[in-house]
C-alpha cells in the first residue's frame, strides 16, 4: 500500500489516500486486539503467549503449556468447549457412539452422600511423564519440548497401546476413512488421536479453541505457561488450591482443576 502511494506520490493527479486507509485499518486492528484482550474473562489474555518470531522458532523447552479449569464456573449441560473443539479440529460423531472420536468430553461427577454434582471437561492432560509416550512402540506418541503431548501420525501404526495406557481415557482411534479434514488438523483412519492443545493455534500465539469458546460464556478454562511463575495461570495456581486428576499416579498432568 505504502509503495503504491510513493510510486506516484500524488503527482499523477491521483489521491495518495492509501496511507490514510492503512492508518485507519491499523488503528482498527489495534483496537480490536485490545478489545479481545479485555473482553474475555479476567485472567484470560488471549494474545499474550509470545511473538510471531518465537512461534517460528518452534516449541520452547522453557515453557510448559497447561490449562486450569475452574469447576465451580463450569456450567452443567454446557458443551461449548466440546463444540468449539469439534469445529476447530473437524471431528464429529460417526453415528456409532462406541467408536466415536472424543478429543474432549464433559464429565459429571456426583457425590453419592450429599448428592452434589460437578461438571467439568476432561481432555488429554498433557502429562509431564506421559504413559502413552512410554508405551508407544514406534515413538509416535511423544511430548513436545513445551509440554504438549501429541501423536505423530506419520509414525503411528494404530496399535492403540497408548489408549490402554492413558489413565484419562483421553485418546480415541479413527475407525473410518476420512475426507476433507481441516488442513491444520490432519487425522486419518488407522491412527490414534487426542487433544493437541490446539497446537496449531498455540504455535501462532493464540489460545486453544476450547479456552476461547469458554471465555465468551463461563470463563472456566484458563490457558498459559505453567512453568513461568509470572504467568497469570501460575499466579492462580500459586494462590488457590488446585488439583490434578489422579495426581497420585505421578504422571504430573499439565491440566489442573480448581474447586473440584
Amino acid at each position, binding site marked *: 500500500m505504502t509503495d503504491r502511494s510513493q510510486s506516484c506520490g500524488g503527482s499523477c493527479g491521483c489521491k495518495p489516500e492509501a496511507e490514510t486507509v492503512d492508518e485507519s485499518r491499523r488503528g482498527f486492528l489495534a483496537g480490536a486486539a485490545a478489545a479481545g484482550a479485555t473482553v474475555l474473562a479476567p485472567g484470560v489474555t488471549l494474545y499474550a503467549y509470545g511473538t510471531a518470531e518465537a512461534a517460528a522458532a518452534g516449541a520452547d523447552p522453557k515453557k510448559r503449556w497447561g490449562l486450569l479449569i475452574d469447576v465451580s464456573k463450569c456450567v452443567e449441560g454446557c458443551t461449548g468447549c466440546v463444540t468449539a473443539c469439534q469445529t476447530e479440529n473437524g471431528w464429529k460423531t460417526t453415528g456409532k457412539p462406541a467408536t466415536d472420536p472424543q478429543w474432549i468430553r464433559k464429565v459429571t461427577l456426583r457425590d453419592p452422600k450429599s448428592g452434589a454434582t460437578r461438571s467439568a471437561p476432561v481432555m488429554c492432560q498433557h502429562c509431564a511423564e506421559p504413559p502413552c509416550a512410554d508405551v508407544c512402540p514406534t515413538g509416535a506418541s511423544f511430548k*513436545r519440548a513445551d509440554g504438549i503431548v501429541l501423536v505423530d501420525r506419520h509414525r503411528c501404526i494404530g496399535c492403540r497401546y497408548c489408549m490402554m495406557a492413558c489413565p484419562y481415557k483421553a485418546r480415541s482411534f479413527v475407525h473410518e476413512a476420512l475426507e476433507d479434514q481441516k488442513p491444520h488438523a490432519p487425522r486419518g483412519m488407522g491412527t490414534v488421536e487426542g487433544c493437541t492443545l490446539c497446537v496449531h493455534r498455540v504455535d501462532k500465539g493464540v489460545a486453544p479453541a476450547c479456552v476461547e469458546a469458554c471465555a465468551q460464556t463461563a470463563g472456566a478454562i484458563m490457558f498459559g505457561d505453567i512453568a513461568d511463575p509470572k504467568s497469570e495461570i501460575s499466579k492462580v495456581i500459586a494462590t488457590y488450591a488446585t488439583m490434578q486428576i489422579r495426581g497420585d499416579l505421578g504422571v504430573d498432568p499439565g491440566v489442573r482443576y480448581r474447586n473440584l
Partner: protein
Amino acid sequence: MSERSSLERLLLVVSLLVMTVLAGIIGAHAGEVPLPAVPKATAGSCVAPPEVMRRSHMSMLQHGRDLSVRQGERIDGGRLTGCVNCHAVSDGKGGAVTVSSPQHFCRACHDYAAVKIDCFECHASRPEQAPKASDASPDVPASAHAALADYAKEIAR
C-alpha cells in the same frame, strides 16, 4: 523320428520368441501410455524449479513434517497445505477436486508412475476455501517460499 521332432520343437520355440518380441515392439508403439496432463498451479511460482520439485518434493515434505509436528517449527501458510492450496484443481462447480479424482494435481503424476500417496489418508487433499481463478496471489507468504527454496537448494547440492 526323435531328431526330427526335436528340430520341430526348437523351431516352434524360436518362432514363439520372435513373435513375442515383435508383439512387444509393435504393442509399445501402438498403445503408448500418454504422459500425464499435469494441472497448472493457481498462481505464482513454485518454491523450487520443476526439475527439483519432481525429484525432491518427497524429501522436502518429509523434512518439513518432522519440523512441524515434532519441533513445532511451522512456516506461514503451511508446508503440504501450501502445496495443496496452490495446486488445487477446480472441479468446475466452484470447488476443488479431492484426491479421489484422477484430475488431482498429485494423482496426475502418481497414477502415471504407479506410486501410492499416503499423505491424503490424514491430510486434506483440497483447500478449505475453493480456489479462485481471479486469485492473483497464492496463499503462501514470501517467508515460507524462502524457507522451502533454501531447503530445495540444500537437497539439489
